[in-house]
Structures are given as structure tokens and as C-alpha cells.
């Protein structure tokens, strides 16, 4: 189900909310460090107010999140954030193979049926792909990728 909303009013309110959050964080900061953000916040508040006013006079309406399959976006986003936490916890290589395999399996189900043997084959390919990048970054580019409790 999608909702047709006035994106001008929503956008303007987001702008005002961001302005307020930063404005309250600015208290106690010296003149030199607050000079530019102060000016910027005033401008942002004015632009946000103008967008809201425009939303009442000449509104732009749109169905939010109308395109595509929303649950897939949510699952993809959750997988990416879980991937991030798993990297610090169990290590870059293992976390990446696990998250990559899950995401590939989940997204593939939208297009085709994935058997166990096919999936095992995919995991092997993914382990190789992640392994090559792991070696390039750690051995040649000297980037110390997070180790975690595994590697």
C-alpha cells in the first residue's frame, strides 16, 4: 500500500528538524567555530520554511516507496548493517562470505529457484571472490582489514 503525500511539506519539515537538531548542538561553542554553522542554519531554516509555504501554494505530490518490492529493500538494508557489525565481531572474511551468500540467495529467490547444490557452488565462488579481494587489500595495498574473533 502506498500513500500519496505532499513531498514539499515533508521535505521542508525534514529540513526544519535537521536545523533544530544542529541548532541545539551549537550551544557553548566559541564564536570562530560557530560563525559559519550559525549563518548556514539561518539559511537552512529560511529555505525549509519556503519549501513548506510552496507546499501549501503549489504542492508536489508523490507516492512514496511506490516502485519495486519494499520488503526486499528492508532486508537488503538490514543485511548491509548486519554485515557491518559482523565485520567487527567475527572478522572481515568470514562476515563478508556469510553476508554476501545470504544476500545473493535472498535476491536470487525473486528471479529463480535455488537448490542446495547450486547454493553450495555459489558459496565456493563467493569465498574465492572475497578471498582474492582480501589478499589484494591486505598483501598488496597494506590495508589491515578487521580480524574479529575469526579472520
Amino acid at each position, binding site marked *: 500500500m502506498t500513500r500519496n503525500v505532499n*513531498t514539499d511539506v515533508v521535505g521542508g519539515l525534514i529540513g526544519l528538524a535537521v536545523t533544530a537538531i544542529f541548532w541545539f548542538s551549537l550551544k557553548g561553542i566559541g564564536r570562530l567555530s560557530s560563525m559559519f554553522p550559525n549563518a548556514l542554519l539561518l539559511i537552512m531554516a529560511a529555505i525549509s520554511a519556503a519549501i513548506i509555504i510552496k507546499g501549501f501554494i503549489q504542492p508536489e505530490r508523490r507516492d512514496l516507496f511506490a516502485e519495486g518490492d519494499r520488503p526486499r529493500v528492508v532486508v537488503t538494508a538490514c543485511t548491509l548493517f548486519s554485515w*557491518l557489525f559482523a565485520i567487527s565481531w567475527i572478522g572481515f572474511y568470514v562476515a563478508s562470505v556469510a553476508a554476501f551468500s545470504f*544476500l545473493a540467495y535472498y535476491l536470487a529467490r525473486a528471479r529463480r529457484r535455488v537448490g542446495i547444490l547450486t547454493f553450495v557452488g555459489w558459496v565456493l565462488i563467493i569465498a574465492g571472490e572475497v578471498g582474492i579481494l582480501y589478499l589484494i587489500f591486505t598483501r598488496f595495498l597494506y590495508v589491515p582489514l578487521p580480524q574479529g574473533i575469526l579472520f
Partner: protein
Amino acid sequence: MELLQKAFFQLFHPIVVLLIFGGVTAGLFAGAMPGLTAAMALAVLLPFTFTMTPLHGLVALGAVYMGAIYGGAFAAILINTPGTPSSIATAFEGYPMARSGRAIEAISAATIASAIGGLVGVGFLLVLSPPLAQLSLRFGPAEYFWVAMLGLTLIASLAEGSLLKGLLGGSMGMLLGTIGVSPIGGETRFTFGFPVLQGGVEMIVALIGLFVIPELFSMAAHGKAALAEVTMSSRERGTFVRMLKTVLSMPGNLIRSCLIGEIVAIIPGAGGSIANLVAYNEAKRASRHPERFGKGTLEGLVASESSNNVTVAGSMVPLLTLGVPGAPPDAVILGVLLLHGLRPGLELFTTSGLLTYGFIISMGLAALAMMPVGMLGGRLIYKVILKTPYYFLVPTIALVTILGTFALRNSITDVGIMLVLGTVGYLLKEVGIASAPIVLGLILGVIGEVGFVQSMLRGAASPYPIVKLFENPLSKVLIALTLVSAGWPYISIWVKRWRARGSAQGGDV
């Protein structure tokens, strides 16, 4: 002239040719990988140059630099992710072209425009170094502030539909740039209780997050890859020659974009990330069909790619004459010069002239080498992306972006910031606030803040310190340009109405 000839002929050596082709190839793949910047590619190469002769070392670095700036176009065209900040505007036109099955056309045009830009930059460097270096010296804090404001008004063209929402996005980006330690006061701001935010939001982290993550979500939502599946048909054969003719048939666009690239390049700190956006904006203004921009037009793509490659040699002007690196990769080249006992200045063009001119000419040869290397590499990358099923492509892009983001500062926090910004960018896009103005605001925010606060400090003794922003003649020129830029959408509407009225009256008669 004799020195130039000698410098030119010393480059015809198998090792030099190998270094040029190898450097361009390595730079191309580094630039095509989101997160790996030209500066990183040069820094990785740096230790290998220690054992080389000064000329070989500089030739290799120049070729990698040229290849990396050009390589950013590949990711921009094929996965809507500017490989380097110099290719932001390339994505605006290249990606829509790729989605409509014109990826090879886009790659060919980007290759030709980049090669032309590279050659023009070298020409400028050879001829105009001393006067341009003088001009760059006249840029003070107020001028930098107005350069940032001029850039901000470009949002008028970057915002899809709404100027106000574009300005809001740009302001949000500038605000994002103020997170962390203040560049002038030195105090920590807007960390919201998270000490990890003291280091601020790295521009490339934001760039990757805001451009890549929304695209990944979109691919996941639609259940298919974004690029149209087209076969290598007979129509694609001869694309390069066709594109060469097309690109050369827009001399005005090329000259304007190259001039913009050169002017921006000589201002230390600006570089390709600003040049490509300014050139794109000016190409749109000058176009007979500005409404086609953002939908896959060659004019915008050519403007962006030619201007950003001009900056490679262009940024060497302040480096070789004043010792001021115009962009981060230039700092690496400065390091190599100093390592070999070469000091920037007049001496570099006289006593060490053979080496300096050899280096400059080798960058021109690297620009030419981009054509064969780019066309072969471009087709290879395109085919790989096309043949990869979307359910492998989405996690692969995610993996590469996570790796690239982490590698910037070896920081897992940066990866978190990248994902959060990407998710916020996806949500903001739904209400009409596009990612491009936010990124542009972030780039310009730091330049604007330093210029603004330093100008205020310079005017501290005066009752109206703000007057310092308006005093200099160069500032006045920049203010005029900013006003024209800000008012341009309204001016163009007025001009169209006036023309329509004129033609209607003509018809009546």
C-alpha cells in the same frame, strides 16, 4: 624549443612506453573502483618509484594519475558510482546512457573527451604556467568563499525539478561538512556524543554512500540490474570513430570545458571534483536542449570528462611553479620531486628542464594511451557487469564499496557512516531531495567556511567585518558570476517567454 625536442625524444624508450601504458592501466582500474582515489593509487605506487630514475618515477606517477581520473568515469557510467569525485557529473549523463543500452557510446565519448582534456591540460601547462601561477596567487579567503558560493548556485541545475530542494540538499551537505573539528576555531562540533565523529565526515565516504547505496536498494527493489542487456551488435562496431566525430563536432563545449578545467585547476584545493560540476553546469546553460540533461546527453558527459582531465596537468601549474599542490595527488608528486632533490620554481624549468619537460610531455602521451587502454578495459568491465546476474552484482558492489570505504582511513566507523548516509539518501530521494547537491555541499562547505571565517578575522578591526568579503575586484567578479548563476533558471525562463512572444507576434504579422 631545443629543450622541448630533447625532452620529447628521451621518452622514446621501451621502458618509458611500458611505464606509460602500465601506469594508465593501473590508474584506470584504481579509479574505476569506488573508494580508491587517484591520491591512494599514487601513494601505493610511491615506494616503487624509489628505485627508479627521477624521470621514470615521474612518468609512472603522471600516467597513473591520468588513468585514475579517467577511470572514475567507468564506475560512474556503469554503476552510477563516481569512481573518483572528479566524475560526479559524468554519472548524471553516463548512467542514463548505459541504462538505455548506450554504455559503449558513453565509454567511447568519455575516453575521447578525457584524452582531449589531458592533451589540452598538457598544452596549457607548457605554455601558460607562469601567468596562471600569478593569477592563483591573487586568490585570498574572500575569493575562496565566493568560489564556494558560485559552486553552491550550481545546485540550480543539479536539483531534479526543485531549486529550493536542491538548495536545501546543498545546505545539508555543507552542514555535514561542519561535523568534527572546526578548521579555524579548532573546537569539536556536532558530534552528538559520538567521539568517532570528531574526525568529521570524509567526503569520499559520503560520496560512496549517497550515490551507491540508494542504487543498490533500487536494484534490490526492482529485482534486476540497472543496465539494459544489449548484445554487441553491428551497431556497436565503429562506435569509437562515430563518437570521435560526434565529440569533435562540439568544439565550443570542449573549449569551454577545458578552459573551466584549467582555471579551476590552478586554484589550490579546488581540483577535478569542482571542475567537472562547473563545466557540466555551463554546458547545460549553453546547450540548445538543456531539458535533455540528466537523461543521457553526450554534451554533459563530454564537458565533465574533458574538464576533469585538464585538471591533471593543470594542477601541476601551482605545483611546479610555486610548490603548492593543487589537489591531494599532487602532494605525492611533490614528495617525489623533493625526494630527488628537485625544488619547484624557475630552476625546475631551466636547470632540470629536460626532466620537467619530459614529465609534462609524458602526461600528454599518457592521455593518448588512454584511448587504446580505455576502450579495451572499458569493454571488458562493461561485459563483466552485464553478464553478472543482479543477485551477484548487488552484493559484489556492496563488498567493493565496504572495502573501498574502509581502506580510506582504515576505519569501520567510516563504513557505518557510509551506510547511514546511503540509507538517509535513499529516503531523502523519495521526497525529492537528490544526493548530488548534498555531496556538492559537502565538498564546498570546507572551502566556504575557511574563506568566510578568515575574511571575518581580517576585517575584525573594522566596524563591518563582512565588507571584507566584497572588497577585492576578483571577489566582485565572482559575486557577479554567482548572482548570474543563481538567477539563471529564472533568466532562461524569461528569455524563452520573450522569444516565444516575439515569434508569436512575428507569426501574427
